[in-house]
């Protein structure tokens, strides 16, 4: 298990505290109280995408990354449109 030193991760809502990344991921993953809010860039066009209420994304225990990958609404709808057209044809 990947351990970190110092204060570690803490959730007061569930009185949960840990210094293990995987344990923290397990606690938060799928828990509706531990959603993500913040910003990232659209993977298609690069505009800033602001998000709230995104399901918890696990922390990579090696790189620390959340690997959040989102598209903006415009690119998302364009993608959906492509899929629909493909289906119709």
């Amino acid at each position, binding site marked *: 298990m*990947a351990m*970190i*030193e*110092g*204060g*570690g*991760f*803490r*959730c*007061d*809502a569930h009185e949960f505290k840990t210094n293990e*990344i995987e344990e*923290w991921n397990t606690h*938060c993953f799928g828990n509706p*109280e*531990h*959603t*993500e*809010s*913040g*910003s*990232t*860039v659209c993977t298609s066009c690069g505009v800033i995408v602001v*998000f709230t209420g*995104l399901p*918890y*994304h696990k*922390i990579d*225990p*090696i*790189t*620390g*990354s*959340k690997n*959040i990958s989102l598209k903006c609404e415009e690119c998302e709808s364009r993608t959906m449109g492509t899929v629909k057209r493909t289906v119709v044809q």
Partner: protein
Amino acid sequence: MNGQDGYLSAIVIYADKRKKNKILATFKHQLLTDAGKDWMHQQVYTNTAAGTRGAGFIASTESSITPAVGNTTLTGEISTNGLARADATTKTHTAASNSSTVEHTFTASGAFTSVLASALFNASSAGTMPHIANFATGSGTLATNDTLKITWTLNLS
């Protein structure tokens, strides 16, 4: 707030796929600077006007440094060839927790000898530097199109 901990993680992904990715740091514990502590208190408690934006800018250096709480700048901060200070592409906070993540992937557009350390700032230039840390190991030589992914995990409670 009874504690604040920052962790630095970083990985190099080489453009030459024959080379194995290099992990520079995995949740390396590091410093909250004095200036950062003052800034946080001002932002959260004492400001009477709107504060600054968050410390979501990531910088790095090839200089060999000894991080200290009195540091206010990152010695030898890289300013060219794709590794200049950048507004991190992803910043996220996990609700009902003490944890936030700030991460960015830099793509080298020139050669670097070895990237050794990183810091967070609250502005695209100058600004307050609340966190600073050495990587556990230097990147070694970076070439054009090699990428350096730096992730800061900030926990406070």
